[in-house]
């Protein structure tokens, strides 16, 4: 039928896919910019307040291309952004480059997101394999689990912070207070240094927002679909080992899960970081937003957008490498 896809077709596809990512990046950053430009009143006043210096005003106008129309302004702004110049922080950390600020913070965020996701997927696979096919009585375990798992990650984080503190407090036996005697007094200091915050954040993300149960259900369905596929019977029938086939066929669905979940996990990370005062972009975002440091907020947004688009691109390329059908399946 069709000719085997040579390297030519494959790299052509990769190029097209990359071009689409670039177009998305341009489009999404334009949406952000357009949001800025539609701000009520004067954006410079909004950012600098009424008492900014003339010089600061001029810089800001130049940085955001405010003197030109929306399209031209976007072009100027995007051209600067493309060279890594995202402007300077105004109120949060005056004078510091937004790109440096956001990059450092984003590394923490992305790390946390990926580690949590990886951990969840691993445990989801472990549980799915351990439980085997669905059975009525598993509901006793899975029902409550999925119910609890529906809690938003920030609530889990708050509960966790308090729960941990309660344990520590019981040892420290802190002094005077009001309220019922069963309620312990948390001391945030006790958990804020050391590795603990990172791990707690990770746990909150995995256990919140339904992440774990979603992954578990998806993974279990994939596992069943792959090991029950007809070609597995054929593999058995010819006397070969099935495991390599199962593993290989799980790669793409697992990667797809990753792609699908990443934006949501990033959102969760933003909130949870803030609760555990981790120095990530979530913390940066909220602190900057509090003092209306628009360049920083915009910079962080761009990092998120770029990260999600880039991640999707990488995963799609990997998928296409593993599964030749992906190339034919471009939407």
């Amino acid at each position, binding site marked *: *039928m*069709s000719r*085997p*896809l040579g390297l030519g077709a494959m790299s052509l596809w990769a190029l097209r896919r990359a071009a689409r990512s670039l177009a998305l990046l341009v489009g999404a950053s334009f949406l952000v910019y357009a949001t800025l430009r539609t701000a009520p009143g004067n954006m410079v006043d909004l950012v600098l307040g009424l008492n900014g210096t003339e010089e600061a005003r001029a810089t800001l106008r130049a940085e955001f291309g405010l003197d030109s129309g929306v399209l031209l302004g976007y072009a100027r702004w995007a051209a600067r952004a493309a060279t890594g110049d995202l402007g300077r922080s105004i109120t949060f950390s005056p004078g510091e480059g937004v790109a440096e600020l956001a990059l450092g913070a984003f590394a923490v965020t992305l790390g946390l997101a990926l580690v949590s996701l990886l951990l969840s997927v691993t445990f989801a696979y472990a549980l799915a394999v351990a439980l*085997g*096919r669905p*059975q009525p009585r598993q509901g006793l375990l899975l029902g409550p689990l999925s119910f609890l798992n529906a809690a938003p990650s920030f609530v889990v984080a708050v509960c966790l912070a308090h729960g941990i503190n309660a344990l520590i407090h019981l040892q420290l036996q802190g002094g005077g207070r009001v309220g019922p005697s069963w309620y312990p007094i948390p001391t945030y200091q006790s958990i804020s240094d050391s590795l603990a915050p990172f791990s707690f954040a990770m746990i909150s993300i995995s256990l919140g927002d339904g992440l774990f149960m979603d992954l578990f259900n998806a993974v279990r369905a994939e596992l069943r679909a792959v*090991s*029950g*596929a*007809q*070609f597995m*019977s*054929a*593999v*058995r*029938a*010819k*006397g*070969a*080992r099935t495991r390599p*086939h199962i593993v*290989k*066929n799980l790669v793409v669905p697992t990667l797809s899960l990753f792609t699908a979940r990443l934006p949501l996990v990033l959102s969760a990370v933003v909130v949870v970081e803030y609760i555990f005062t981790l120095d990530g972009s979530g913390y940066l975002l909220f602190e900057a937003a509090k003092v209306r440091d628009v360049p920083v907020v915009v910079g962080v947004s761009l990092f998120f957008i770029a990260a999600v688009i880039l991640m999707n691109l990488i995963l799609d390329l990997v998928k296409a490498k*593993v*599964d*030749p*059908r992906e190339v*034919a399946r471009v939407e």
Partner: protein
Amino acid sequence: MSAEMSAEMSAEMSGASVVRVEGLTVAFDTPAGRKTVVDGVSFDVSPGEVLGVLGESGSGKTMSTQSILGLVDGYPGVVGGAISLTHAGVTHALLADLPAHLYARRGVTQKRDRAWQRRSRAVMTPLWGQAVTAIFQNPRRSLDPLMTVGEQLVEALAAAAAKRGARPAAEALRAEALRWLERVQMVSPPRVFASYPHELSGGMCQRAMIAVALACKPTLLVADEPTTGLDATVRAQVVSLLRALVREESCAMLYISHDIREVLFLTDRVIVMRHGRVIERASTADLRAGVGERHPYTRSLLDASGLVERAAPAAPAAPAAPAAGALLLRARGLNKAFHGRDGGVTRAIDHVDVDLYRGEVVALIGESGSGKTTLGRALTRLLQLDSGDMTLGGEDLRALGGAPLRAARRGFQMIFQNQQANLHPSLSVREMLDESLRLHQPALSAQGRRERARALLARVGLGSHEERYVASLSGGEQRRVGLARILATSPALIVADEPTSGLDAAIKLQIIDLLSEVKGDDLTYLLISHDLGLVRKIATRVLVMLRGRVIEEMPIADLGARPHHPYTEKLLAAAELGDRELSLDAVSVEDVEAGARGCSYARVCPLARAQGLAARCAASPPPLAPHPRGGALACFGLRTDA
């Protein structure tokens, strides 16, 4: 009969059989209660013998074989009997000493599933590949989509070698794999070797599967409806190949099928199963020769196959020649091309002219991909044509649009190819009919609609099905409801696209009978089908399509009675599998070059080769010219000698 049977059985038992099944009973526990799918079945297969198991589709044959062979997870629901497999002089009992709790308890429990799985894996793992292997229906899904065909073939060869204690070099494995691909008639083995399954057609995938299965050098091959969903000529190729290779390899085969023609073609002995029981045991030779008393069900299968009819001296008179009613539909120069993503162009309809007269039943035959469905949809204004003219009862069909078109639609209806036909899955039968009647007969009151709906259901032979949903109807009932709905519009023309696909032989007949019953004098059918048996039963005229072109047209009486277009000949040969030996190089449309400038058949046409016409045929398409004996034909080779 029983004496004959026991004699046969004891004869079988005296020989060393490859597989012996005794009193096997398989039952599944469904929410509706226990369902026995196999009920005390016994048979055995001697070395090198081919045994056919003939039974209705959907009766659990696949499920039982696969789970008993341990190929799928889960408990098969075996409740009794014995199965023994003999390989290399050792007999393995598959069901012996099963823990009692496997049989006793109702309901699927995880414990039982796991116990069964552990056990069947322990028994079967050493046997797979060597003692027994299998090929399945849905060849495309039988190959791992992420590995090339070559890799999978090599894997099988390596596994087989490993069981013999050998470790051949990669080069040797590759060479042997290529040899196997050649043996299963791949046109270009190295290319197929490097291809992924999705790049191959269904027939090629099945041939690759046959290579994989036989490369293991099994003692027994279990073939479970390996031709389901394949086109007639592709099927003919697969079946012929299987027959030749199994004999060459002297491998025993258990051939499970619902198609009596295939079974007669392939096997030495046949058992016929119905409702889980064996109702007939016979040698294939006897069945073919019509020797001996037959169970009525077997009889009906033989009748439905058309084989017996042909054996009988006088075939029942073909439907009377068309009563030459008035011209109903006239289509000229229809064209429709689809543009693929990769820039390729498929000419699904290529300069087609069609005339339909009132009261006719015109059959449109051809293999899948030849454009039958597209033509049917074009004639019912369901897709946008590139060019051409159509008039229905004098009215210019192509000029219609919007509300006038919707109003005109009640005059021409279509039965769709799909299993669930025209039916919406979340509407009950009553709701569906009500909806149609409200649209097409707005004058009726609610009560009137109800009565009319009942009458329609009665007309298609359905009683109390009003509150049922599609999913709970059988395939045949779905077709009936679909027909009732169409009749609600009182159409003049019905285009029926494979109205019997996916149905069992007996049900097929019923549906065809129903179609002729409701036809009356005025109704016109365009019947799209690749089942020549059915076409013979009902059609008055036949159109043959190849690659978007109509290449032959004839009155039904001429079908098989005069020289045909070479491609029509091939279709006829493939359809009558049991009657003639097929040459092994059966070619299907998928091998015929797409977008040829001349005759689509030129590249593989034996007639062109014999008459030295190849150059001419390849240069320009032969026009559809009247045949002296009636009908028309598009072939340079035949026109001259006619």
